[in-house]
């Protein structure tokens, strides 16, 4: 990794933490991992005509607990929005998420960096949202199978400020966050089963600049070790390529470890 002293790496992390609620976010179905396909679904999960979501109280309590643990501001009135896009394992044709009024805002988390200093990392927001189902393609010719068991599994999306300056700091942040969620018993933190997933927004800028450079999104960093590894190939590649990158706009969306899908690029309509 080219450590040019003139440049600094700026990292913000988006963690998707699956909440350990008894039932799904908007219906009474179980959230147990690994059940036979489509055995933990109901009319709400399958988005049958006429169904309505009923918010899981336990999830709201877990979100508030998490908010308190990071000294966040808890909104008395928060709001769900729909993010519309077509995808076979998204039964309603929209994801229900929080957009304008997330339940938690302005939190912080303190990490110890490798040189032993304490550092405050801002948490922009935490919001509640639903997970999608799974499309299964392996070993099937000409069509795909859809498993909706995971549909409606509650997630907290925890978005940090771009306060992290190295993969080491990012790793420390993730480790701290995961231990808090585990201590609160709201998330099992199992990265292999996907119950704690991380996307990173990485950019590089000249020391002393305040504006962020071109951003690259790294989806689904599925282990903390991978994120912390000093030789992380993607972080490194980003640095090397930086001087030739355009400075404006967002960089390409990368999919490193495609365990789960990101919304397709054709998503033109915003949340509402």
């Amino acid at each position: 990794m080219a450590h040019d002293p003139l440049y600094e790496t700026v990292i913000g992390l988006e963690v998707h933490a699956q909440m350990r609620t008894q039932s799904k976010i908007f219906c009474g179905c179980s959230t147990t991992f690994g059940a036979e396909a489509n055995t933990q679904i109901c009319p709400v999960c399958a988005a049958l005509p006429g169904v309505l979501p009923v918010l899981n109280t336990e999830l709201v309590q877990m979100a508030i607990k998490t908010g308190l643990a990071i000294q966040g501001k808890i909104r008395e009135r928060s709001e769900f929005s729909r993010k519309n896009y077509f995808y076979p394992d998204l039964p309603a044709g929209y994801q229900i998420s929080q957009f304008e009024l997330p339940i938690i805002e302005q939190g912080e988390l303190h990490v110890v960096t490798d040189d032993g200093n304490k550092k405050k990392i801002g948490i922009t927001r935490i919001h509640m949202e639903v997970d999608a189902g799974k499309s299964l393609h392996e070993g099937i010719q000409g069509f795909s199978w859809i498993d909706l068991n995971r549909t409606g599994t509650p997630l907290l999306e925890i978005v940090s400020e771009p306060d992290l300056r190295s993969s080491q700091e990012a790793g420390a942040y993730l480790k701290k966050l995961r231990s808090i969620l585990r201590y609160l018993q709201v998330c099992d933190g199992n990265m292999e089963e996907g119950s704690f997933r991380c996307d990173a927004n990485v950019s590089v800028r000249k020391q002393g600049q305040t504006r962020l450079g071109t951003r690259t999104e790294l989806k689904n960093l599925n282990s903390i070790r991978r994120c912390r590894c000093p030789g992380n190939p993607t972080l490194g590649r980003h640095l090397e390529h930086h001087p030739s990158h355009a400075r404006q706009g967002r960089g390409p969306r990368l999919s490193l470890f495609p365990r789960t899908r990101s919304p397709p690029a054709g998503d033109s309509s915003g949340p509402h």
Partner: protein
Amino acid sequence: MDPSQLTLVQTQSMLRARQISARELAIAFLDRIDRINPDINAFITVDREGALRAAQQADERLHQGNATPMTGIPIGVKDLFCTENLRTTCGSKMLSRFIPPYESTVTRKLKEAGAVILGKTNMDEFAMGSSNETSWFGPVKNPWDPQRIPGGSSGGSAAALAAGLALATIGTDTGGSIRQPAALTGITGLKPTYGRVSRYGMIAFASSLDQAGPMARSAEDAAVVLQCIAGHDAQDSTSIRADVPDYAKTLYPRMDAIRIGIPTEYRPDNLLPEIQQALEKAEQIFRDLGAVLVPVSLPHTRYAIPTYYIIAPAEASSNLARYDGIRFGYRCQDPVDLKDLYTRTRTEGFGDEVKRRIMLGTYVLSSGYYDAYYRKAQKVRRLIANDFHEAFKSVDLLLTPTTPTTAFPLGDKIDDPVAMYLSDLFTINVNLAGLPGISIPCGTDAQGLPIGMQLIAPILKEENLLSAAHAFQTATTWHQRKPEL
């Protein structure tokens, strides 16, 4: 026995007194449906077997003495309430073979009360339309004149009642879909407060506007049906946690000291003269009943149609995304890939009006236009609601025409969407404000076609609407007129 001459309340006492059995009653209505429905197309599905089974159970309950006011009453249900194991089409090719595996709250309550569901009534496709001409199952004919539309979208529920094919029906109202067809077919139709009746299992068109309600031959009959279906439901978070009053008991034949506001904006110059005259006569009747009439203003009335045609299509475009050919409903033949599957399924499965509204809705929600259209429409909606809020500081009810014209000929407006949209001019704001409104018959035009008037009340004041409508119907006979069939 001629079932078309009965009212729900009369039938209740006949059933209790053993003058008729629920089975005899069901058979009389089913036979009449067989005879008349082919001409007016009010029912999409007739459930003879299910109705007879329910009638038999109703007779047992009547015998055991644990009947409810709805036990044994033959009804029709708009075909957008999911009924377990009974086809629910929403008037669309997309769902023409959809058999729900679950029951809507409204139909569950009706079944539990012992009502006899004769079948599922015709409607505009996905409740989008004001004439019942957009149904995949063909238009409904107005029993008063088969060359004319019955109104929409609950056109089948309205026509079934007017033709004496049921004692009550259930409709839904997003912008006037209960009240407008009620007016055009000479029946009583109530749109309750948003949230008074559960929307669970009711196929969504515009979620912030949709509301189910009773259609009946009188306010008295409507009160019994509303009693059965109203109330909070844990499966609908937008249903209101409020006690349901005993509507039948709150009906009162006088209106002493009740203040009725007459909104000046609801009497445009081009209003059909017969409607204007019918309203003036109705005003006099209300005065005679003891009411005080005062002019009021609802200054944002003219923004109703543009506001509605941003909000409703926006919500519809999202609600209808689930009809993608993947899990249920229509799927195109031999798709070559995912995009082809989506495109052809939706192109072939939806009709023109539904597609028009999906495109409109997708446009106003798209990034870059959201603030200019959807967010602005939400602000205007607030202003419209505030108008009513202000008016209700000085009056108890509002009185308006229900529709600008009487029933128009089939085919008249189907190629002119804007002209069609204007049919709901007087009803739309009530949905935007979430208020209850009722349409009751109050006259006829030169050709003998029914004219309806609308009463509007503050949130959760359905009993005041029903009571005022009942007082009017005690003093008049318009609601008793029936078409020759």
